[in-house]
């Protein structure tokens, strides 16, 4: 079967609107997952076991089950106990927490690897442990895991497609909708892939800039 892209322009508005949703979800969940990841890492490493153990269970839940299921439970499950989240919010919460747990894994490793002398130097200046973490240890830890955090952010971009299960009309869903109308799966999947790729290029560009900026600080 030959590819026929002449049908594409007529549907670009739907695709681009979907792309807008995808960007919105991705940005919001990426921010949540980044700060959530730091927060979780601190809980995992520095809190009393009474806090840590319940958190571990929570972490296992997110590590151990597919994102799809998590979104499903957040959207279809929570409403049954009276928490009715709009689909967009449910999507952002699900994606954000899921990747926060992933980021937390990365940041934990990096925190452990930061030279002990750094914490000591900060504590010696009179910084509390929290302040030392915030100002000295965590920035260095995050610096050391920029590439894998970049991984997670880009995985998040693609997984944002899953929020289509709860009816947010993001890029993949828009493409599927158009395919449902036109039955040109190859053309529109390729178009969607291209749009994803453009968003991905922007994210890579940001990552490269950050990496270049931190190169001096090693």
């Amino acid at each position: 079967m030959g590819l026929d892209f002449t049908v594409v322009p007529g549907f670009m508005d739907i695709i681009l609107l979907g792309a807008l949703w995808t960007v919105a979800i991705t940005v919001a969940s990426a921010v949540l997952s980044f700060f959530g990841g730091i927060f979780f890492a601190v809980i995992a490493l520095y809190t009393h076991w009474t806090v840590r153990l319940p958190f571990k269970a929570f972490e296992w839940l997110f590590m151990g089950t597919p994102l799809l299921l998590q979104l499903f439970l957040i959207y279809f499950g929570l409403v049954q106990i009276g928490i009715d989240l709009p689909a967009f919010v449910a999507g952002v919460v699900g994606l954000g927490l899921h990747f926060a747990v992933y980021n937390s894994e990365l940041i934990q490793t990096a925190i452990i690897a930061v030279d002990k002398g750094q914490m000591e130097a900060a504590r010696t200046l009179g910084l509390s442990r929290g302040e030392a973490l915030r100002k000295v240890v965590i920035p260095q830890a995050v610096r050391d895991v920029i590439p894998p955090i970049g991984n997670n952010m880009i995985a998040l971009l693609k997984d944002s497609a899953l929020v289509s299960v709860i009816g947010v009309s993001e890029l993949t869903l828009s493409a599927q909708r158009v395919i449902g109308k036109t039955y040109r799966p190859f053309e529109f999947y390729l178009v969607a892939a291209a749009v994803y790729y453009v968003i991905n290029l922007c994210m890579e560009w940001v990552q490269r800039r950050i990496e270049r900026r931190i190169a001096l600080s090693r």
Partner: protein
Amino acid sequence: MTEEKHFVEIRHAKKSFGTLEVLKDINLTVERGQIVGIIGSSGSGKSTLLRAINDLDPLSGGEVWLDGVQVNKSLPHRQYEKHINAMRQQVGMVFQHFNLFPHLTVRDNVTMAPKLLKGISNDEAETLAREQLEHVGMLEKIDAFPSQLSGGQKQRVAIARALAMKPKLMLFDEATSALDPELVEEVNQVMKKLAEEHMTMIIVTHEMDFAASVCDRVLFMEKGVVVEEGPPEVIFKNPEKQRTREFLRKHIEGAA
């Protein structure tokens, strides 16, 4: 609290790493405004002792008092944290390996703690940074990152960073090892000026000349015990103990 109030008092300090006893019953008092030097062979426990004053390497036994307050108090965690942060703000420390923050510029290395802990404004911080860096001749590198500095430059930033908190007590772990003679002289001047302003200092050093010229009192440590202490004239010219004499042989010969 002791009857006579010393500024720093260490009593029966003991410390082990596993089976290795690194500090064995160390006692030490320092008065306000004094400069005390600690000399001793490699691995004798000097760094460990210095770190204990800050409770960085908590002692296995013994007490550390600073200005009438016990530093290594056993307190519930939360209270201990508050307590130790307050104590540490009064104590500046320059590490043997400097431990500059690699992700911050020289400016931010110096101003981070005062900004955070004393809530000074950005302008005040800038003034403070320039003042402190000027002191150690590092003003021109204010925007550099630690990775761009030479060894001596790092050490000077570390000194500026510690002084920026205006501590009451300064601990130097081989403070001048990476400094050239001119800078040693400058740092020497800085120290003397600080001493006049009643800053108290404890200095671990291998440079006997330096110790002899700035210290009011010198301790000689060996294998976790203080072998001998006294004014530099005595320690360096005419030590009592055989072991001290041996350790300083070359120096004493040179001076004699």
